């Protein structure tokens, strides 16, 4: 348990509230990023991470636009329900029951550079299936989505600031 000092001793508070604030402060101390505990902000972070990943896969598609035999890749769309039910991305970890055990850090996403898309609109004689126009559309869409996510993120921060009474 973390220790915390009461800032205003005159402040009267119900025991339940006290416990809640204590828990929040515990989390404040234990976590590097408290904002992850706010579901909306955590979700937006997940979304931004996904868009970042997608940008990399799209850049790969465009860079290989003339490589023979290259197939377009894309990553799995972000599952909204899953994101809602588990806001911070959960990493799979192995239980260490013996001090001799080596901690394994396995990440859930196994296919990080995207899997080849099954549906291809056209394949050139060289076996290349990249359609630049389609990729450009996807890049533009990705950029707009990212912009939306960052705006929502700053708005959420604004909400928290308003709640704290710091907005002017």
């Amino acid at each position, binding site marked *: 348990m973390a220790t915390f000092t009461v800032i205003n001793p005159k402040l009267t508070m119900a025991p339940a509230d006290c416990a809640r604030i204590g828990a929040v402060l515990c989390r404040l101390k234990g976590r590097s990023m408290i904002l992850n505990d706010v579901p909306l902000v955590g979700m937006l972070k997940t979304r*931004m*991470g996904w*868009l*970042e*990943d997608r*940008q*990399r*896969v*799209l*850049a*790969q598609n*465009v*860079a*290989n*636009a*003339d*490589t*023979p*035999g*290259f197939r377009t890749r894309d990553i799995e769309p972000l599952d909204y329900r899953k994101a809602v039910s588990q806001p911070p991305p959960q990493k799979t970890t192995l239980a260490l029951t013996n001090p001799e055990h080596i901690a394994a850090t396995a990440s859930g996403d196994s296919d*990080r*550079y995207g899997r080849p898309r099954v549906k291809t609109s056209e394949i050139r004689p060289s076996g290349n299936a990249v359609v*630049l126009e389609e*990729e*450009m559309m996807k*890049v*533009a869409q*990705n*950029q707009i989505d*990212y*912009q939306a996510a*960052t705006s929502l*993120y*700053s708005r959420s*921060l*604004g909400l928290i600031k308003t709640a704290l009474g710091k907005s002017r």
Partner: protein
Amino acid sequence: MDFVKSLSIAATGLRAQAGRMRVIAENLANANSTASSTGGDPYRRKVPTFEAKFDRELDAQTVSLGRIQRDTSEFQNRYEPGHPAADARGYVRYPNVNSLIEAADLKEAQRSYEANLNVVTATRRMITKTLDLLRT
């Protein structure tokens, strides 16, 4: 940061396409390079190739210019009896460069180059948006 990775991947695309343009420019520049004496071979057209390479650090397939190969098709023959490289029948062997094909290839390289630039611009905008979060 993953955006830097996206930029690096796009940069490999830019480099590869620029290399391809260089080869095309070489072909076009030498479209009329004949041998200086009888029996010599004129310039032979170069063909750029692309290779997808898995970059472990970037965690993606990057592209690079592979071996530059030679076009093995026939040379063109033109009747120019006065030319120093003309054979006994008066024919001069000219390079197997077709400027129409080169122009089309150049256009394609340019299009791909611009697409990669587009990715760079989009990614940079996304980075700016991320940095803007600090200012709120």
